[in-house]
C-alpha cells in the first residue's frame, strides 16, 4: 500500500469517524430528550386519565343512587313491574348496566340481561363488598360476554333490595381524554382485554410482560412494544395499576408512538450518512491534493536516492518549498554533494595508496633480485684476480641470468595486468573448463589435496572467453591450494542460478579474517609470502568483463569459498565488453 493510499484512507476514515461520532452523539442526546418529554407527557396523560375515571366514578355513583330511589325500582321490588322494567330505569338513569336484586343477590330485574331474572347476580364481587365499597371496577356478564364497568351498589326500597348499576368502560372514555397526536390511552382489564379509543386492541398479548411487571410490583412500570416488524410501530408505555382491596382490577396505560422519535433518529442518521459520504468524498479530494503536494517531493527524493544508490552521486532534487519537505530535499542535495566530494577524495586517496602500494611492491619485488645481482657482481670483481675466476664467472653469470629472468618475470606480470585483453566470447561449457583446470592443477598437488567436483547436470554453457575463464579459475584453484599446505579438500561446484551459471570454489584451509575478505580483491594485496597481489585482481577483472559477480565468504578454521555468478548471454553487454570496468 502506497504512502498516498495510506494518507487517503486515514483522511477519509478520520472524516467518516468524526461524522459518525457527531451523529451518534446527536442521536443519543435526541433520544434522551424525547424520552424525557414523552415520559412527562405520559405521566400527564395518566393523571388526566385518573381524574377522568374519578369524575366518572362520582357520576356513576350519583346515577345509581338516582335509580335506587326511582319509583320504577320501587315497583320492581314490589313485584308490580314487568320483568324487564330495569331497562327503562337504566335508560332513565343513563346506565349501561342495572340489576335490581334481592338482599340475597337474586336478580329481580336486569336491564342488560333481562333473561337472568331469578338467577344470582354474578358481578364477581364478594357480597360483603356490596355494602362497603364505593365505585369500583367489576366484570359484568352480558349475553354477548362479560365486560368491565364502573359500578356502584346502593340499597333500594328501604333495604328490601339492592340496585347495582354501572357504566361500561368503553373506548368513548378513552376518546374523551383528547390525547395529543402520537399518544393514546389504553385500559387493560382482566383477564386480558385491552381497549383504546378505537375499541379492542389486537395483539394485546404483547402487553403481557408489562402487565405482569405491574402485577408483580403493584406499581408503575415502563416498557415498549413493537407492534409489527416495522420499528416505527414501536410504542413506549407507562403503566399504572388500578387496585381494589389489594387486587389488580385494571391497568391504565399511556402510550407514546416512537415513530416520530425513530423518524428523527433515522433522519439524523441519514443526514449523518450524507454528510459522512460528502466528507469522505471531500476528504478523498483534499487528501489526494494534500498527498500529491506531500508525496511528489518525497517521490523525487526517492528517485534521487535510487539514483545515488545506483552510483549517480550527481543526482539532485528540486527544492519546491520551504517546509520540512523542502528542508529534506536540501539536506538530500547536500548529502549527495558531500558524498560526491568524499568519493572524489576517496578515489584520490585510493590512487595515491595504489601508487604507493605499487611502488612498495615494485621496490620489494625488484629489491630481491637486485641484491643477488649486487653480490654476484661484487664476487666477480673480487674473483678477477683469483684462479677460480672462470668458475666464479660461470656461476655468477648463471646467477645473473637467473635473477634477470626473475626481474623479467616480475615485470611481465605487471605488464600482463596492465594489458588485460578484451574477452573473446564464445559458447563454452563451464563444466569442461572446470574439469580442465582441475586436471592441470591436481597433477601438481596430487598427494595432499582431495579434489571434489559437484558439477551441474544440466546445460552449463555460457558465452565467455575460455582462456580468461580458465586463467581466472586457475588463479582461484592455486589460491585454494596455497591455503591448504597440509592438504585438504578442494570443492568446485557448478550450478544454474538466477538465469546464469554459478561457480563455487571452496577450500578447507584456515580461512580469512573479515578485513582480509574486504581487501582481498585489491590489486597488489596478498596474504602470501611470495604473491604479487594481482591474482584475485585479475580474477575480479575477468569476472567483471563477463558481466558477472564475485564474492567471498570465509570462516576462521573452516575454509574459504569464492562464488562467481556469470550470465549465460553477453549480447546486451557486447557494446561495453571491450571497455574494462
Amino acid at each position, binding site marked *: 500500500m502506497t504512502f498516498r493510499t495510506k494518507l487517503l484512507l486515514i483522511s477519509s476514515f478520520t472524516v467518516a469517524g468524526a461524522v459518525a461520532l457527531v451523529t451518534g452523539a446527536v442521536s443519543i442526546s435526541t433520544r434522551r430528550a424525547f424520552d424525557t418529554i414523552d415520559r412527562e407527557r405520559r405521566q400527564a396523560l395518566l393523571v388526566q386519565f385518573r381524574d377522568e375515571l374519578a369524575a366518572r366514578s362520582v357520576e356513576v355513583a350519583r346515577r345509581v343512587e338516582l335509580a335506587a330511589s326511582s319509583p320504577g325500582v320501587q315497583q320492581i321490588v314490589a313485584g308490580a313491574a314487568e*320483568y324487564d322494567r330495569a331497562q327503562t330505569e337504566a335508560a332513565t338513569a343513563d346506565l349501561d348496566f342495572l340489576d335490581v336484586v334481592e338482599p340475597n343477590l337474586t336478580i329481580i330485574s336486569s336491564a342488560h340481561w*333481562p333473561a337472568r*331474572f331469578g338467577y344470582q347476580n354474578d358481578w364477581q364481587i364478594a357480597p360483603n363488598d356490596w355494602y362497603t365499597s364505593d365505585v369500583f371496577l367489576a366484570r359484568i356478564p352480558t*349475553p354477548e360476554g362479560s365486560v368491565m364497568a364502573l359500578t356502584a351498589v346502593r340499597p333500594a326500597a328501604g333495604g328490601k333490595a339492592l340496585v347495582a348499576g354501572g357504566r361500561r368502560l368503553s373506548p368513548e372514555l378513552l376518546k374523551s381524554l383528547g390525547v395529543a397526536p402520537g399518544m393514546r390511552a389504553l385500559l387493560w382489564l382482566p383477564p386480558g382485554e385491552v381497549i383504546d379509543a378505537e375499541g379492542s386492541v389486537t395483539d394485546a398479548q404483547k402487553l403481557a410482560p408489562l402487565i405482569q411487571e405491574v402485577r408483580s410490583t403493584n406499581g408503575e412500570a415502563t416498557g415498549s412494544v413493537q407492534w409489527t416488524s416495522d420499528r416505527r410501530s414501536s410504542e413506549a408505555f407507562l403503566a399504572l395499576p388500578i387496585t381494589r382491596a389489594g387486587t389488580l382490577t385494571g391497568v391504565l396505560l399511556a402510550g407514546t408512538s416512537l415513530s416520530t422519535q425513530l423518524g428523527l433518529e433515522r433522519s439524523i442518521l441519514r443526514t449523518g450518512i450524507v454528510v459522512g459520504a460528502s466528507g469522505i468524498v471531500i476528504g478523498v479530494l483534499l487528501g489526494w491534493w494534500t498527498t500529491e503536494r506531500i508525496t511528489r517531493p518525497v517521490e523525487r527524493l526517492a528517485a534521487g536516492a535510487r539514483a545515488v544508490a545506483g552510483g549517480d552521486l550527481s543526482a539532485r532534487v528540486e527544492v519546491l518549498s520551504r517546509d520540512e519537505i523542502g528542508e529534506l530535499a536540501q539536506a538530500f542535495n547536500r548529502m549527495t554533494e558531500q558524498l560526491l566530494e568524499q568519493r572524489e577524495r576517496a578515489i584520490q586517496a585510493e590512487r595515491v595508496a595504489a601508487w604507493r602500494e605499487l611502488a612498495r611492491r615494485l621496490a620489494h619485488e625488484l629489491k630481491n633480485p637486485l641484491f643477488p645481482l649486487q653480490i654476484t657482481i661484487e664476487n666477480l670483481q673480487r674473483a678477477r684476480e683469483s684462479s677460480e675466476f672462470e668458475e666464479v664467472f660461470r656461476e655468477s653469470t648463471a646467477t645473473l641470468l637467473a635473477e634477470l629472468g626473475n626481474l623479467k618475470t616480475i615485470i611481465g606480470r605487471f605488464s600482463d595486468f596492465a594489458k588485460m585483453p578484451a574477452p573473446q566470447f564464445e559458447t563454452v561449457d563451464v563444466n569442461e573448463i572446470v574439469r580442465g583446470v582441475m586436471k592441470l592443477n591436481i597433477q601438481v598437488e596430487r598427494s595432499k589435496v582431495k579434489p571434489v567436483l559437484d558439477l551441474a547436470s544440466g546445460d552449463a554453457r555460457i558465452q565467455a572467453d575460455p582462456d580468461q575463464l580458465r586463467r581466472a579459475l586457475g588463479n582461484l584453484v592455486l589460491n585454494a591450494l596455497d591455503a591448504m599446505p597440509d592438504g585438504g579438500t578442494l570443492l568446485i561446484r557448478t550450478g544454474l542460478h538466477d538465469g546464469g551459471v554459478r561457480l563455487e570454489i571452496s577450500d578447507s584451509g584456515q580461512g580469512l579474517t573479515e578485513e582480509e575478505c574486504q581487501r582481498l580483491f585489491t590489486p597488489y594485496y596478498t596474504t602470501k609470502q611470495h604473491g604479487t597481489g594481482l591474482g584475485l585482481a585479475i580474477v575480479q577483472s575477468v569476472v567483471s568483463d563477463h558481466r558477472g559477480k564475485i564474492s567471498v565468504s570465509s570462516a576462521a578454521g573452516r575454509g574459504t569459498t569464492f562464488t562467481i555468478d556469470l550470465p549465460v548471454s553477453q549480447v546486451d553487454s557486447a557494446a561495453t565488453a571491450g571497455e574494462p570496468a
Partner: protein
Amino acid sequence: MRRTALRSIAAANAVLALAAGLEAARRPRYGGELRVEVRAAITSLDPAVVPEDPAALGAQRQWMPSVFETLVSLDDHGRPQPWLATSWTHDTTRKAWIFQARKNVKLHDGSTWSPPGGAIAVPDDRPIEQILRELAGARSAVVVKAEDGSLLGTGPFRIARWEAGKLAMLAAHDQYWGGRPFLDSIRIQMGRSLTDQASDFQIGKTDAVEIAARDLRAPKQRGTAMASSQPTEMVALTFDGGRVTAPTRQALALSIDRTAIFNVLLQKQGEISGALLPRWLTGYSFLFPAERDLVKAKQLVPAPQALTFGYDRQDAVIRPIAERIAVNASESGITLRPSAGGADVRLVRLPVTASDPWLALQDLTALLKVAPPAPAANSYEAEKALIDSSGVIPLFHLPRGWMLSSKVRNWSRFEEVWLDGGAAQ
C-alpha cells in the same frame, strides 16, 4: 278422551268476546269498515296454497272461512255440521258418499254455485268421520276461478282488493246465503309489528290490533277493550338438518325452566306444555313431560356444546323467551349463540289451525316439513310419533290476544262483528 275434551273445552276459532254484557245486549248495526292490523303477511288466500310462514298460515286459516266455505264445518265442539252441503249419504255400493249441495248459494260474482246434479260425490270408503273431518278442512274449501283469474268463493265476504303481504280489503257479500254480514268492509293491514300496531291503535288508525300474550293482563288493568282466544299458538324449539343429537335435544328440553318463563315472561297467559296440541283441544297434553331436570340435562351433555340459535328478534314474545332459554341452556353446558341466518335450533311460534286435532296436526306436519303421522288409534299416538320424528320441543301454548277499539262489538268471526255507530264510518 278426545271427544270428552272437545266437549269440555271451547273451540280454537271461537273467540271469546270479553266485552261487557251490556254491550252484547245491544242490537247489532249494519255498516262501517273494520280496520285490522296483523303481524302476519299472507301472500295468498287461496286455500290450496299452504304458506310456509307459520303466522301467515295461522291467519289464513282464521280468515279463510269468511271468504271460502267448505261443505262441512266443525262446531265449537269439533263436531261436523252441514254447511254448503245440507246432507250426505253413501251410494248403493257404499263406495262413495253423496253430499247434497245447499240451494241458492251465490258466488261472489253473483252467479249461483250449483254442482252438477245438485250433489257432490266423494268416492271414499273410509269411515265417514274421517271424510267429514277432511271436508271441513281449509284445503277442501269451495273455490271457483273466474275468467279474469280471480278466486271466487261463497263466504260472507269477498276479496275487493288484494296486495299480497300488505293489504287485504274484504267487502260484504250481499247475496250471502246466510244473510249479509254487518260490516260493509274489512281493511286488513298485514306485516305490521306489534309495536307499530300498538302505535296505530293509540292514535286511532286501526280498530283491532294484536297484542302479545304477556300483555293480555295489562290492557285489562287499564280497562282497554280486548279479546283473547283459547291457546291456539304453540311456542316450540325446532331443529334443522339433524345436526343436533337426540341426547342434546333432550338435555335442552330438560334444562328449560318453563315455569319461570310462564310466570314472568308470559305473565301466566296460556299454558305450559310438552305437547303439540293444547289441552283444550286434546285433554291429554299433561301426558307429555314439561318439567325441568337440570341434573339429568347435565348428565346428557358430558362436554360443553355450542349451537347456533335462531329466532325472530323483532318478535316481542319470542325474543325474551329465547334469551331466557339461552340462559337456562348454559347451565347444562349448552351454549346457544344467536344466529341471524341458518341455525341449529330455532324458537318458533306454530299455529294450531283447526279445532280438530287431526286437521291441526296436518298443518303442523306441513310447517315442520315432516311426513304426516301414520294412521293411529288416537291422536295421542300420532302426536307422540310426530314429536319423535320431528324432534320438536313444545314449550307453551299461547292465546291470541286483540286490543279493540271501543266501537268494535261481538269480536268473533268477521261475519258476526259489528261496529257501534258503524253507519257513520
